[in-house]
């Protein structure tokens, strides 16, 4: 069942990584709140920060902020900076006010920001104190989404890692799937695992706090997102075992991911083939259609979400694209290794960023498609480059078989559009 997954003669795992430091054009981890608050339906995210933090969430969340958001910012004012005792009392007051207004909230995350980290406001202690105060109705946790510590999707990592120490202990042999997925994708995944007889399957994050996510020495966990380094470490500390696998993007990625899980849970080759055959066929057909546009085109990834390596692997192997540079904000060998093994040698693999130098490289290479953030996309389009803005890849269902065609289409659309508009000129 793994015949097509033979790695290329030379993968990228041993490619020397270009490590750069300089100006980084990335989001901070607070941005993770925007999708996490929809996923965890009884959670509220209270950022303790400045007006900048509130403005960031508002700018990134667009109009969604009016759909009864379960996040807010406690904006630090001049008086809060004067004395820290005052700040703790203020925080208690703000939290009580908030919980009175939203009695349906069961988990409250105090999210640290750059200002709160720099003034060393001890949100960990505040969370403990508030947990006692509001027990048993509300559990208060703390993590940092600050820009000085986290980049974009790492906010989810920090959030999930903060939940691991308080998960109930279990001795059961269970599969724990880690990473927030769109509900529809999560259901598809559970369907496939169930059909193979893998179970019970637990999810982190769960949709509600009452769900039975637990962890222990017999837990085996698989990651569906490549940015969960700290959560990985926290689960290992609880005695759980990681199932290393490429990430479930495209037909190959999904198959490899499922195969690793199936192997760990003793699923027979016949069962695996029976369950995956039909969706694999569908995925391949859908990819084939979308990738007509992509075949032979070059692609350049700016660092953003840590999804870059597995996505480059998908585009290179299943859509026939040629990665020029694959930039990632961070590279974890344990997490990204399996995808690096499969990514054919050739592209520059870069970690970190000096955005001006990277733009110089990008302009010199003139790739057919550039995957980048919204601050760079329009300026690059104006220079005649086709771009795919990266944040959409986090907000759109792209994992597993049924989304494989959509995933390829997301990349194809920019190129198609340029072709349509230029043909009409």
């Amino acid at each position, binding site marked *: 069942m793994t015949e097509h997954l033979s790695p290329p003669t030379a993968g990228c795992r041993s490619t020397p990584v270009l490590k750069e430091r300089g100006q980084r054009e990335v989001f901070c981890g607070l941005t993770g709140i925007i999708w996490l608050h929809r996923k965890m339906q009884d959670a509220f995210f209270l950022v303790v920060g400045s007006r*900048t933090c509130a403005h960031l969430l508002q700018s990134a969340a667009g109009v969604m902020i009016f759909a009864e958001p379960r996040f807010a910012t406690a904006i630090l004012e001049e008086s*809060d900076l004067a004395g820290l005792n005052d700040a703790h009392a203020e925080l208690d007051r703000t939290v009580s006010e908030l919980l009175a207004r939203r009695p349906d909230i069961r988990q409250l995350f105090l999210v640290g920001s750059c200002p709160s980290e720099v003034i060393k406001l001890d949100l960990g202690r505040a969370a403990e104190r508030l947990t006692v105060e509001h027990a048993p109705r509300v559990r208060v946790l703390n993590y940092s989404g600050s820009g000085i510590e986290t980049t974009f999707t790492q906010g989810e990592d920090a959030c999930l890692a903060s939940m691991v120490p308080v998960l109930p202990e279990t001795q059961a042999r269970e599969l724990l799937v880690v990473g927030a997925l769109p509900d529809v994708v999560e259901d598809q995944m559970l369907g496939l695992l169930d059909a193979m007889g893998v179970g019970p399957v637990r999810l982190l994050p769960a949709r509600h706090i009452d769900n039975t996510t637990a962890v222990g020495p017999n837990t085996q966990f698989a990651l569906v997102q490549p940015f969960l380094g700290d959560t990985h470490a926290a689960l290992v500390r609880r005695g759980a075992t990681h199932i290393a696998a490429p990430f479930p993007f495209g037909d190959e990625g999904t198959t490899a991911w499922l195969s690793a899980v199936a192997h760990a849970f003793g699923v027979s080759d016949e069962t695996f083939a029976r369950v995956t055959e039909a969706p694999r066929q569908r995925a391949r057909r859908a990819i084939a259609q979308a990738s007509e546009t992509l075949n032979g085109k070059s692609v350049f990834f700016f660092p953003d979400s840590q999804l870059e390596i597995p996505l480059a692997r998908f585009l290179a192997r299943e859509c026939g694209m040629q990665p020029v540079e694959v930039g990632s904000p961070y590279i974890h060998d344990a997490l990204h290794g399996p995808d690096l093994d499969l990514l054919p040698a050739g592209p520059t693999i870069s970690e970190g960023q000096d955005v001006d130098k990277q733009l110089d490289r990008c302009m010199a290479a003139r790739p057919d498609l550039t995957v980048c953030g919204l601050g*760079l996309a329009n300026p690059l389009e*104006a220079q005649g480059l086709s771009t795919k803005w990266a944040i959409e890849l986090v907000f759109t269902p792209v994992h597993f078989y049924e989304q494989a065609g959509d995933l390829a289409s997301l990349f194809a659309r920019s190129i198609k559009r340029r072709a349509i508009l230029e043909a009409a000129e």
Partner: protein
Amino acid sequence: MKLTVWTYEGPPHVGAMRVATGMKGLHYVLHAPQGDTYADLLFTMIERRDHRPPVTYTTFQARDLGSDTAGLFRTACQDAYDRFKPEAIIVGASCTAELIQDDPGGLAETMGLPVPVIALELPSYQRKENFGADETFFQIVRALAKPMDRTERVTCNILGGTALGFRHRDDIAEITNLLYELGIEVNVTAPMGATPTDITRMGQAHFNVLLYPETGETAARHLERTCGQPYTKIVPIGTAATRAFIEEIRGLSGSTAPIDDHGLRQTWWTRSVDSIYLTGKRVFIFGDATHAMAMAHVARDEMGFEVAGLGCYNREFARPMRALAKEFGLEPLITDDYLEVERAIEAAQPEMIMGTQMERHIGKRLGIPCAVISAPVHVQDFPARYSPVMGFEGANVLFDTLVHPLVMGLEEHLLHMFREDFEFNDAAGPSHHGGHAPKPSEQAQTPVSEPESLTAPASGEVVWLHDAERELKKIPFFVRGKARRNTETFAADQGLAEISVDTLYEAKAHYAR
């Protein structure tokens, strides 16, 4: 600490970015943590700029904090100069860098860069975006503009236009044309479109035209003091204000050139019989002070609306706002808390809201049409077409903007007459706003057979009797709020505890106009 879901203004360094991005040949070196670059996308996405904002961020991270963030700042500053070769540099700190106290101004000055380096002190924990823009522009002008001999011909500067300004692009074009018609050349338009070199020759203009007090007033005052340039006090939004502005310009310049206003259609449009149904429509106005105050006059004096509420989110302009509200017989709403705005709108029950992006959402939730008249705005309010709000063409644009969200006259009559038409009724909302139909009122779902005790009092102690409540529902949604309010006020004035059908019609007669 202040619990905040939505904020009308960003932090002050975003204001500084608006100045830097509006200008050319200027570079902003901002000491800020990784992540603060999010602000770039306001310019590249909302305003759709085709270049990166001229801002270099130090993007320090946690591991840098223990060591040498000051060194990081110097490197970033030097790199920015070497790469972009700007005519001048502004340097400053964002909220986090303000806490680590590296003093970007002092650091940059010691570097000996061959161009002017202007330090910005923007107190992030006290002030907001508009202050940041105003202060930045002032510091640039203070550093670069010097008294000079006047130009031979009468010229002026146009002050206040920035990047991400609501309709700044087209307002400046409109007013520039108007000034040319008056025989006045524009010396420098700043910050929008100006280079630091342009700023150095601002002193040669005869006077200044201040279009946006929020972002240009401090600089205008400074130029008045140091260069002896008077500045205009009237913001030319609306026909009357534009005419008054023209008179003000004539006074400052001595120009007697005639103005061709044959393109001004708003005055006839508002007088045509088609517009009669607009008379007395109750509007709630909220936005930045300049736009809100100007629109209050347009709404009352040019459109014939009744201003039912007036306010602004920028406290800096609370005083003139209070004065104007008093003139309108209103208690002004000065707040940056949108929940407070929502409550005020709910209480006022207007037929239309004139506000910002937030008020558009409030309107959607309450089922009240809304026209956007002020920042903050989303991408759709940076239109491709020419759409000033200033000058005569601006008056035309405003007429269309204010009429569009309302139901049309005949539609209004038909809704009165055939309330139970199955596809043309209350719940369907204005026929051209399919997606924005007001939410059905709670009363609409109350079964007819409910006992009287279930008719909820809408406010105070006055109770609506069931028949009266049913009668009220026969009134179309866009005047129902007003009828409900008037009736309750009437009942309270009369000392009535209950509202019957008779009370409803008594009140109608009482308030008849």
